């Protein structure tokens, strides 16, 4: 272990190299900027404006970080920032599996 005194070489206060959403590669800096530009105050708006949380994992890991950033930027407690609405599927699932509902497999046929 060694001590390193190079904090001056890391001007990352705004999070320009700190990725929040790894699926869509959105940084904390980009999220903060769009919150300020468009006066965003919900997770859903941040998604639409930056694509953060729109990737394969659908915000499973980054939603909490987005909430934290929103709470810092809008100076509200994190409990006041509501989660994005949930739509199916809640996990990635093959198109064929969703189609199976109407294909009559597994006793799923409709009248």
């Amino acid at each position, binding site marked *: 272990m060694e001590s390193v005194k190079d*904090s001056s070489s*890391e001007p990352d206060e705004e999070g320009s190299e*700190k*990725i929040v959403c*790894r699926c869509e590669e959105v940084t904390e800096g980009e999220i903060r900027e769009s919150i300020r530009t468009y006066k965003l105050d919900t997770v859903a708006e941040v998604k639409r404006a930056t694509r953060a949380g729109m990737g394969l994992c659908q915000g499973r890991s980054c939603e909490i970080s987005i909430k934290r950033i929103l709470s810092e930027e809008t100076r509200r407690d994190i409990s006041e920032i509501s989660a994005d609405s949930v739509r*199916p599927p*809640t996990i990635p699932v093959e198109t064929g*599996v*969703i189609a199976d509902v109407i294909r009559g497999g597994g*006793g799923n046929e409709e009248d």
Partner: protein
Amino acid sequence: MLNKEVAVVGGGPAGLTASIELAKRGVNVTLIDENLQAGGQLLKQTHKFFGSEEHYAGVRGFNIAKKLIQEANNQSVDFLLEGSIYSVYEGKILAVKKGKSTQLISPEKVIYATGASEKVINFPGWTLPGVMGAGAVQTFVNQHKVLPGRKFTIVGSGNVGTIVAYQLLQAGAEVTAIVEAAQEVGSYYVHANKAIRSGDIPIFTSHTVKKAMGNESVDSVKIVEVNENWQPVPGTEKRIETDVVCLAVGLRPRTKLTSLTGCQTTYSSTFGGEVPLHDKSMETSINGVYVAGDVAGVEEASIAIEEGRLAGVSVASSMNYISSSTAADQKQEIRNRLGLLRGGPYGEEGAKEKERIRSIFNERVTRRESRSVKR
């Protein structure tokens, strides 16, 4: 479409005990779990549990899972394994992915025991290979008996962080640091003591990760001291060589399915995030939909075991499989045990938080009259 009496979602400790209590009382119950085998997080736990006999004191976690699965089988619980629920349609129809097909299940009552998922913290480099959750490390080490690296830095000194540290040492790995942002170690004394005593792990309290470094994967991590406002103190950076940065920074309830079902939630920092509102019998704001275990607030496995039982008894009673007076007695016994579990210095906060959630429930949720006329 399969019509079922009760579906229990999630085969961890809460889901297993809920299913057992239901099946014991003659209810036809299907336990759905996405994995090859039920047991949930218990399967990863190689340490012995403590507490009382009802909570399997002295038994290792994976053996508790074995016992519960055995009992569920004895009671003829219907297991639907490798079944992933990907949607809840019309508030009640479970869409289960099974292989390449969908099985629709329409139960009269549902108990969600979906557990928790790990939180992550973001720092530059956290997306590098080598940064992983404590759950993943436990899966490697305890289930598959493979070390995912040689040198480990653990972020977070709660129960999970310190237990993982101890397990890593047992597996022959080097733990180069435990990094904790708070001023004190967060875990139960027993775990902290084990981890600190048996190895020689440097613990950095009031520190956080500033950056993970490495070209293709992590080779070192830079940590920094934080002040009482959680702000980094310039000039206090330290670099630590490490292959794996293990994040043990907390869990949050897995609420996607309950939210899709329409259950109202409240935010609870004590319980890890959004929690579905529930009453004393574990029923949510939606009639006939129950929760148990970590999804109802992240606590201990032993609490999940009891909450599962409570939900199971409640559902059996609501379907008139047992009389309401018998149910009241049985529920009271379970609540007493829950009271004891939450009695310790660490549990008290949980008891208070449950009370708070119940009072919000009572404020916001008015039950429809038809509640127990179902059968």
